[in-house]
């Protein structure tokens, strides 16, 4: 019995040893279950597509040697604490070279802390909260930041609707909505004077009844309502707002695009605007190729999460190539990848061209999309820094 066990153990060690020499392991820390499972699904689908593409082409070449890719998916259940343990597991147990994810800021902020402590490069494709990368040399992101997105929305709402009074409804227990709501408030009051955000209402994750908050908002005299929430909460908010007599515009942010907003919201969301990373309708060039290929495999248009995951993973691979050769010592390689990521300039992604700031944040443009009568997210305006 002991002998068999020993043989088994030895073979496991042997095989994993062999595997290390030829493969590059990248971890994905994504929400496959929990509040926003569609976000995890989009991430995984984009990753699988890339994995197949790279491995079918014979793998990637780094400093003369060819490696095949191996992706490890870890479910963070859309929870902050699970994102932390997933990060640690990917780094210490799965020994990945780098991590893609977590997607939403609620998980990315704590996970970034862990990745930075354990000195492993991490790219969050979708987290727009500044805290994710702040003072964390190992943490990068694939999207713009809320301090950029907030003013984009403010300027758009002021010009488009001529609004001077705004209301905000957001989840105070989640990093992304909270951060963005505060940025929006500051930018709006900067533009229209103190007190021009006439209602600043909050709720807590998992709440389904917003009638009291929306009553305050409808009575506040606001001309536009800003809802920086995820796709699963937006339909409830929009429907309840309408049933309380709200008939003015509602605008959202990039989280509206992640997941399956339209199948949950239906006709109620049509005609509203939100700021986001890319618009699938009317895309050209490499973006169109990606969209067509994705649609052919999965039968649906890729959302911004899929596009950003694609870009972030490519960015990680680019950085690995830029190291000029892996040493095999995982700690050293991770540091080399981090250094390479920090020097990326003019990276041509499908969500735009990126150049990194020393903080690990890309400088890139935002688009404002309109949900048209067909329920498509159609390009409306582009805003660059």
């Amino acid at each position: 019995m002991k002998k068999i066990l020993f043989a088994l153990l030895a073979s496991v060690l042997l095989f994993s040893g062999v595997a290390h020499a030829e493969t590059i392991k990248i971890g994905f820390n994504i929400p496959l279950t929990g509040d926003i499972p569609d976000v995890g699904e989009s991430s995984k689908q984009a990753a699988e597509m890339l994995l197949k593409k790279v491995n079918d082409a014979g793998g990637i070449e780094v400093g003369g040697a060819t490696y095949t890719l191996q992706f490890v998916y870890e479910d963070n259940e859309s929870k902050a604490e699970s994102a932390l343990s997933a990060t640690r597991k990917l780094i210490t147990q799965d020994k990945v070279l780098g991590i893609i994810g977590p997607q939403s800021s609620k998980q990315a902020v704590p996970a970034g802390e862990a990745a930075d402590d354990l000195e492993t490069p991490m790219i969050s494709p979708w987290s727009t909260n500044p805290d994710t990368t702040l003072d964390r040399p190992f943490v990068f992101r694939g999207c713009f930041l809320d301090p950029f997105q907030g003013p984009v929305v403010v300027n758009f709402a002021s010009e488009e609707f001529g609004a001077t009074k705004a209301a905000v409804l957001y989840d105070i227990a989640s990093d992304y909505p909270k951060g963005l709501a505060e940025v929006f408030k500051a930018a709006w009051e900067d533009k229209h004077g103190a007190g021009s955000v006439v209602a600043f209402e909050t709720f807590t994750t998992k709440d389904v009844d917003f009638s009291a908050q929306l009553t305050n908002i409808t009575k506040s005299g606001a001309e536009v309502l800003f809802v920086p929430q995820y796709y699963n909460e937006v339909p409830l908010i929009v429907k309840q707002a309408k049933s309380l007599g709200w008939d003015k515009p509602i605008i959202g942010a990039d989280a509206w695009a992640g997941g399956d907003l339209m199948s949950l919201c239906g006709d109620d969301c049509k005609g509203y605007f939100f700021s986001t990373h890319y618009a699938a309708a009317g895309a050209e060039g490499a973006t169109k190729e990606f969209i067509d290929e994705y649609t052919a495999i999965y039968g649906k248009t890729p959302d911004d999460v899929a596009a950003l995951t694609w870009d972030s993973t490519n960015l990680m691979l680019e950085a690995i190539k830029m190291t000029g050769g892996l040493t095999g010592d995982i700690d050293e390689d991770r540091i080399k990848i981090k250094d390479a990521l920090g020097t990326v300039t003019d990276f041509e992604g499908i969500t735009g061209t990126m150049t990194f700031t020393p903080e690990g944040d890309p400088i890139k443009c935002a688009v404002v999309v309109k949900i048209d009568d067909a329920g498509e997210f159609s390009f409306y305006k582009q805003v660059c820094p």
Partner: protein
Amino acid sequence: MLESIIQNILNALQWGSFYSLIALGYCLVYGVLLLINFAHGDIFMVGAYIAFFVATFFLAAVGLPGWAVIALCVPLTMALTALVGVTLERVAYRPLRRKGAHRLYVVITALMCGLILENGNLALLGASRRLFPTLVETQVFNIGGIAVTNLKIAVILVAILSFVFLETVVSKTKMGMAMRAISYDKFAIPLMGIAPDKVVVFTFILGSSFAGLAGLMFAMSYPVLDPYMGALIGWKAFIAAVVGGIGSVRGAFAGGFLLGFVEIMVVAFFPSTYRDLIAFTILLVILTYKPTGLFGVARFQKI
């Protein structure tokens, strides 16, 4: 200001209706078996999902108009949810009762059943949210700045009618008398020629079918369904039932509305983060002064 208050009273009546409907189920089962059926919140969730499948079936496969779908949805959802409740009783609680297990173990079994329902749903149907189809167009009536929808009125009416119905069943019918008798003395009941199991099954049918009805109304009001939707609301409805005086139908009804009112009013006038803090502090104070709840009567343990 007055408009806001009236609007919020209406909001609270709607929100309280759900607590009341769920609390009624806790209260019936507790009244008969002295069992806190912690799976009840999840039976409510199952009810919402059953309503979803029944509604989409009749809408898409059969192609009936919305009002006809509702007319079919109500009895079907109630019956199918009752079936789930009775199955749970048959599979999980009755064997324990037969073996004379302590009540504590039955309560823990109930907690477990709730988790099985949640995770069973997650495993079978996946983690994606589902949109409950619109059965009737929501019409907004604006009366002097106060917005009321047809749905809101329907929900409140359903809660009140359910209460009247259950109160009548418990206090006026033979079965109701048997239910009250069983909670009074479960050993003397068989001597009177009543089969206790029948009464227990009847109780589960009543409790679960109204959880199903609550699920249907909830899904119509908040049309995004997820497997964990029953957990938190179930816990809160249970607390509402305790504050009302668990075991008393009137208490459950009043407790549900009380909790709904406090929650909505706190959010209307304070930051929402204070909601549960203030709401449950108020309930705690009520229990401190009246440990048996608003309508409860102290039970004396027989020797």
